[in-house]
């Protein structure tokens, strides 16, 4: 069964609405998970579980969201900023994420803005393709 991008988007909207307790209308492509939709760290795991079930896929833990291996690594983060080396690692690890804005000011506090509804749609689209 091939899912169109619309099908994937609709399913993801439903999944995120359930996981985060928000209205489906709020789950628009450029909404950030933490800033706009109020996700907390534990919600990311919940989202992974739900996506695995909804799309019958397996999501390796470091693939969709970055893990401690990057964010707690002193070589990849320096003084609250992701280092060029760190950025390279993140890009390799998260090919579905758009880093163009983040690159201008790789502040660790802004890393949550990278995770938008669109990044999840792109990720799932690449998995079910």
């Amino acid at each position: 069964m091939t899912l169109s991008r619309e099908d994937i988007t609709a399913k993801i909207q439903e999944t995120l609405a359930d996981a985060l307790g928000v209205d489906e209308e709020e789950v628009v492509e450029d909404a950030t998970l933490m800033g706009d939709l109020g996700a907390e760290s534990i919600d990311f795991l919940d989202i992974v579980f739900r996506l695995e079930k909804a799309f019958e896929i397996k999501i390796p833990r470091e693939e969709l969201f970055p893990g401690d291996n990057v964010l707690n690594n002193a070589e990849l983060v320096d003084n609250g900023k992701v280092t060029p080396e760190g950025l390279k690692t993140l890009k390799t690890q998260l090919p579905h994420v758009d880093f163009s804005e983040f690159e201008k000011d790789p502040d660790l506090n802004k890393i949550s803005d990278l995770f938008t509804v669109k990044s999840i749609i792109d990720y799932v689209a690449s998995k079910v393709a």
Partner: protein
Amino acid sequence: MRWIWIDKFVEFESGKRAVSIKNVSLAEEHLHDHFPGYPIMPQSLMIEAMAQTGGILVGEARNFQEKVILAKVTKAIFSDLARPGDQLRLEAVVENLAEEAATIVGTITCGERRIAEIALMFSHIDKNLAGMEFPEENFVFNDQFMSLLQFYRPREASPAQN
């Protein structure tokens, strides 16, 4: 577990589902304040009862080696009241069981009455350190809890004693 808020398990399928019983008693002091003249079991304590039922189910699946902590109340919908004298039946079904976390869906009933639907997520916190360190000893399934478990287990093994 520092305190136990369910009375016993009546069904237990390892890693899959569990059914526990919680008897609501007017001897529970908080019922006299919640509310004066109208004692009903607080909904937060129904969530606690489900968290213990599901938490023990999830803990047992890993032989009580993980520190299982309630991480998220995904859903809690209450459709009826629980009053003194009611015997609540709490059924928890494992939805996901992974290295670092688990989710359950649960229902609370009293006889024919549906009281609540509760979905919870648990974290195996040693696998979700996020840079933090926790004590090595298992403060969730502590000695007190494990010895209580021993009290129940021989009875399971010898049904003749009822």
